[in-house]
């Protein structure tokens, strides 16, 4: 079981290095898709299945799809990926950096390992993550209202930043 976790975490680091090393938004967003998927897998192993599903739906299915459409609007005819040597070199450099920092901070490969367990202080009827979401709607109602208001302000901010064709802040598309 720990072997599965090792695989997932290895893929996570690889995907993060891909996000950081690619200059083109297409491949970087692809790395981000991989990272988000693996992150959902890690979350499931730690017991948050509901949250993982929500993350998959909203993050990948909502935000990354919108990002893919906007990146397609700013089309790059020759995107630079891992095929070109500078990008590959940067990627290997990041991986090397992560591995060296990891070796610096860990004692050895076989002494200790992170057990996967569903951490919760006491016994509960429901799973932790679902109970948390339910609490947000019941006793955390004020925070929910605050979150709603902040999202509305975010909408106004984004609309103000992209207002008009060339009057706006961003490039006129």
């Amino acid at each position, binding site marked *: 079981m720990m072997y599965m976790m090792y695989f997932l975490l290895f893929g996570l680091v690889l995907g993060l290095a891909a996000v950081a090393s690619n200059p083109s938004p297409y491949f970087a967003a692809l790395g981000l898709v991989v990272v988000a998927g693996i992150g959902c897998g890690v979350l499931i192993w730690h017991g948050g299945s509901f949250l993982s599903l929500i993350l998959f739906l909203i993050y990948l299915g909502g935000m990354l799809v919108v990002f893919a459409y906007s990146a397609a609007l700013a089309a790059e005819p020759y995107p630079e990926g891992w095929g070109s040597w500078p990008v590959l070199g940067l990627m290997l450099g990041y991986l090397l950096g992560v591995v060296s920092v990891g070796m610096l901070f860990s004692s050895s490969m076989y002494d200790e390992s992170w057990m996967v367990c569903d951490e919760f202080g006491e016994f509960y009827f429901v799973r932790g993550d679902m109970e948390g979401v339910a609490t947000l709607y019941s006793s955390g109602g004020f925070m929910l209202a605050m979150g709603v208001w*902040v999202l509305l302000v975010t909408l*106004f901010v984004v609309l103000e930043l992209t207002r008009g064709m060339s*009057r*706006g802040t961003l490039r006129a598309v």
Partner: protein
Amino acid sequence: MNPYILTILLFAMGLGTTITFASSHWLLAWMGLEINTLAILPLMCQSHHPRAVEATIKYFLTQATAAAMLLFASITNAWITGQWNLEFMSYSLPTTLVTVALALKIGLAPLHAWMPEVLQGLDLTTGLILSTWQKLAPFYLLLQINPSNTSLLLILGLASTLVGGWGGLNQNQLRKILAYSSIAHLGWMILVLQFFPSLTLLTLLMYFVMTFSLFISFKVNNSTTINSLSMSWSKAPIISSMVPFILLSLGGLPPLSGFMPKWLILQELTKQSLAPLATLAALSALLSLYFYLRISYAMTLTMSPNILLNALPWRLPSNQHTLPLAITTSLTICLLPLTPAIITLLTL
């Protein structure tokens, strides 16, 4: 900008600071900081000028990084200690990370590089909001946490005073000078944070008053370079005669009120047997004093050569609201005798 949008954005800025002030949970404090960052973005790129847009992007990136670091540190603290309270952070890693994240948020050296460029891209009013209001929430958080490492805050403070002094020396753009002056003053505030937090609050409030008067004086003159200040003696003679006092107050000279925070901080540092540090900080204030004196030299102490017509402009009645400027200028010049009362008020 549409007045409704402006109202919502200003309200959101007030809300963000209020949420951070009212919070004892790290998530809520982070939320308040993010609301503040978000709400000021359209205000910053109001003019839609490329430099303003670039300044907005730089500001957003640095503040988002700082907020992400803050969230990381608070979640690490929650993981280790199991609680989310602001005041009870007892492990050194999260506390240090929080301090560094907040230092990036307010622009302390060596995390100050974004400040001059961001302020240069903004108009004077938005720059004023950035220099004053946006510093309130991070300072509140800095005052709440127990510092983990004594030398971290001292290094941040001393580096900021030195960088603020040396960085402003070769500038002739007023907004960059104001940015470096802000960095230097923030350095003074951080120096005394772990010994006498009320002095940090005092320095912060005094800095707000002084920099408000300076920003508004420059705005009344509608000048953003030292060169354009040189004809202000004919346009607004009273303001030209008061600005040297504001600048010398910022430099920390007695008997002006800017001397008050520096004096008390030096006294507190000496009491904590950090006399060499106090000496270094006082010497670094000399650097800042040089460029304050240069501005007052160009503005008031000399009359630059010009044709006679420019020396006699029509002095039409102005529509500018100068009451805040009058109030803050008076406070900047005359507040020193009230030092005991102010200290008592802030130490309650």
